């Protein structure tokens, strides 16, 4: 198609496109133009542009910045660069060897075509309350590494999410990588979600970080997603389970006291509470196997 043809296929509001050469370059551009947004895989951003839900001045493409495309291991931590795609994560040797549960989680993220473009950092930074990765990061005690005009800053994933699509990223900052602690021998992360169609956002989901001591749960961190406005840690419920084990009514009552449920098109708040309770049991059963 010639130039005229290309014009015909544009649907979004006009924007400029900037291909950042380096992290510093991207930060500089972003801090100079507060209406600009970061483009990584574009799997949420591009549809939003075409539906005219968003009209940024400029898209800063970070997908070609080499430093953001690495997965590395340093002692007890794994660093996943923000522009690494989900498919790349799933095929990475370090992840396969040291954080295989992440592959199971990513298998639930949309479909292969989307995973080939969508990025790890994109999903973490977008902060969709129904997405798997933000909850995974919180449960795995990950740290989010941000770079801005004042240099590098690190924040716990659990502090990173403020509310519905709201994160701690500042105007001049770019999410550069996510730092995951490697699991200890007696520790595992388990994951489950309940969805109507494979690949969709779940009606409710849970990621559990469990430490076992003498065949008993020594430490438990349950993180729920697709239930409220952000991934939420259910601390008291976790404690209750360590103490008393699972009982539907008790767990349901406890979850109700510490989480805020928001209805969506596929499940109302009451159903989400029920599903969160059921998921807790499923996780405990998974642990036994």
């Amino acid at each position, binding site marked *: 198609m010639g130039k005229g043809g290309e014009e015909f296929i544009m649907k979004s509001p006009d924007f400029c496109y900037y291909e950042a050469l380096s992290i510093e370059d991207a930060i500089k551009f972003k801090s100079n133009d507060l209406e600009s947004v970061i483009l990584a895989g574009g799997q949420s951003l591009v549809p939003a542009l075409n*539906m005219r839900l968003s009209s940024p001045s400029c898209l800063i493409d970070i997908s070609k910045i080499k430093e953001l495309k690495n997965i590395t291991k340093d002692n007890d931590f794994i660093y996943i660069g923000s522009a690494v795609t989900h498919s790349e994560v799933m095929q990475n040797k370090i992840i396969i060897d040291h954080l295989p549960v992440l592959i199971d989680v990513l298998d639930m993220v949309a479909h292969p075509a989307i995973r080939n473009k969508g990025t790890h950092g994109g999903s973490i930074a977008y902060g969709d309350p129904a997405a798997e990765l933000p909850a995974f990061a919180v449960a795995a005690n990950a740290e989010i590494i941000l770079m801005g005009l004042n240099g590098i800053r690190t924040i716990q994933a659990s502090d990173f999410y403020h509310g519905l699509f709201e994160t701690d990223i500042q105007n001049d900052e770019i999410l550069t990588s996510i730092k995951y602690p490697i699991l200890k021998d007696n520790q595992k992360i388990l994951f489950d979600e309940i969805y109507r169609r494979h690949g969709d956002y779940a009606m409710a989901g849970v990621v559990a970080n469990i430490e076992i001591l003498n065949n008993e749960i020594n430490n438990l961190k349950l993180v729920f997603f697709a239930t409220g406005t952000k991934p939420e840690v259910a601390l008291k419920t976790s404690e209750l389970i360590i103490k008393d084990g699972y009982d539907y009514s008790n767990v349901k009552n406890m979850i109700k006291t510490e989480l805020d449920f928001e209805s969506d098109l596929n499940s109302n708040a009451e159903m989400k509470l029920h599903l969160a309770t059921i998921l807790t049991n499923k996780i405990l059963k998974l642990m036994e196997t």
Partner: protein
Amino acid sequence: MVDITLNQNSKLGSIDRPNSYIGRSLTRDGAIRHLEGGGKFVDDLILPRMVNSAFLRSPYAHAEIKSINISDAQKYPGVIDIFLSEHIDTVCKPWIGVLSHLGEMRSPEQSPLAKKIARWQGEAIAIVIANTRAQAEDAIEAIEVDWVEKEPQINMETALDKDTVVIHKELGNNLFWTRTVEQGDVKKAFKESSTIVEATLDFARHTGVTLETRGIVADWDKSEKKMSIYHNGQAPHMMQHIIAKHFDISEGLVRVISKDVGGSFGIKVHVYGDEMAAIAASKILGRPVKFVADRLESFTTDIHARCHKISGKLGVDKNGKFLSMEINDLSGIGPYSMYPRTSAIETNQVLNLSGSPYIIPNYKAVGTVVFQNKTPMCQYRAVGHPIAVAITEVLVDKAAKKIGMKVEDIRKINFIPDDQYPNKTPSGVPLEDLSHQATMNKLLKIMNVPDLEKQKKLDLEKGILTGIGIISMCEVTNPSPLFYGVGGAHISSQDGASIRLEGSGAVHVSSSITEQGQGTEAIMKQIAADQLGVSMDTIRLTLGDTDATPYGGGTWASRGAGIGGEAVLKAARTLKNNILKIASAIMQTDIDTIDIANNSVIRKNGGEGISLKKLAETVYYRGHEIPQGTNPELIATSSFYIEGIPFVFTNSAMGCQVTVDQDTGLIKINKFWVIEDCGTQINPKLVEEQIRGGVIQGIGGALYEECVYDDQGNMQNATMADYLVPMACEMPDIIVDHVITNSGRSILGAKGAGEAGTGGAPAVIMNAINDALSSMNKEVTSQPITPEKILKAIGKI
């Protein structure tokens, strides 16, 4: 799957002769072209001087337009012009979506763009013409509208209440159409019934979701006074007539071209205001105008379907014989009846089809269709079938369970026996050539019901809810002139085909049937090659162009194979006869001694023949070598329509096994079986694709799809992320098998196969789920059957 359906129709000749293609699962060449990305769709088209368009649409379900100011928007970069209803109406006459043969229908005049009052969210208000779609959308944001919101009429159940908002004041209330069908004496028969069961079912609104959205390029040529329309529709000649009529153009000077179409399902056979506005803009501007709907526009302006609440009652005697059935159906259709087919047909089909596999001597059906401030509703695949089949088959299951009969046994004793056709539906519609007994027997055999029952018991002991469902159904296909034409609509029930032998020996076929992805091209080629005696690679085909194909109805209501295919068959036979006459003159032999096979005229007793290429060369270039007085026509044209009955019905039986998760409410369809009787199968693989695709859309209606509205008439899920269509992971294993009863209305004997899956799946899934819930004495009655509805039904939330 066998490659070939043996001995299915003696009228078609032996299956083991050369070039016998009817009944074979040949690979269709169109599929490879699409796989390679070679499809040419409306949005791929770029014409010189073409401009693009986008619409300002109503953000409200019901609102008055106090004023519109377009002066700022007109100054936007790239904007050519902006038209409101008052401009468009200068070149396009309004329409009314009513027909005369089904009693009084009341729907007001409709123009391409709303005047003064917008009546659904998404209704087009203004068309912006710009160089690019993006520029047009930029300008839309600058149009200032002074809206005054009005109370919307959303709920169909209160549509006729006294204090409800009336959408069209001139009509006095929100009633569009009502019809009552009565056969026998229902009241008396219910009194005589020893058992009466009742059910009330809800069917949510959903839509067709074509992969390719609606699109049109209108190209008005002032000098020729000719309107060329590139349209991804299903019925080019219907559109030709409508465009000529409403734009005051001589019909012969309207050319409608519908080439590759990315799915239609009935969505693309209606007249849409936005498409008419794009045509009007082209006529005003004198240049090509493109409009292609985006997905949001598809969800809020493509016709919706279903939206029914139906209650029914079935009375049976002590032996389980059906005595009486009564149904009462309510449907909401949006603010207008669609043009030209009307929005009454779905309800009409419900009234006609309910109870249709069975002998039910006393039958009463009342249908009421009301207006709402929601997207207009009209005919979508398997029009009315899911509702009719579900109410019937749910009642039949209830009756069986109440009197302690097996669900298969009660069906068997009530079927119209296979040897008692012609017959009639309980509503009085003629039926012929059906096979409910044979299809049900075959279904039960391949399902192995005793094994499934055993498994169900074992599952239940483990706390797993497994259920089995079966149904039988009739499927409306191949409509005759008594469907639309009789009511005054210029919708052809006839289809034509033309076949010519060319100088190169190539055979060119043109047909008024269109291709929308289902393989029409392949079956037309197979019929032509089979009947002519030529290899598949000699056939070229033209479809979807009113300048180049014979006149006809197009593709809808599963009519392509049965009607369009018969026209091709007849044309091929006439051409063959012409060829043989010429050959007998050239070869100096009696016509009975020769035949056509493998692209040559052959002597049946051996000896030298003549290739079709040579014969054609002789006729076209060296006519002097042929004896004088020989008819040299190497072209034949034929037509066909169904005579004497309203439809050629097809029938099928379906079964499915589901598991219901008590904790999550999730439903898993473990296996699905279909036995279809569509008469002659031209390409069994394509038939099975139709069945399976249909079942998937039926699963959509049963479990997933719903246009969700809030109480102000705002559609809540108008994206592909939120509106759930079943995808590959949700598709169960679907076993398809056949019984073959040829239609006696044609030589080909083919009936339609496109509706069954979509029409039957919702009923059989509902029966299977309710079978699973029966151990808890619970049931679900509302589709889509969501996890939330399951959990509510079993008291978990």
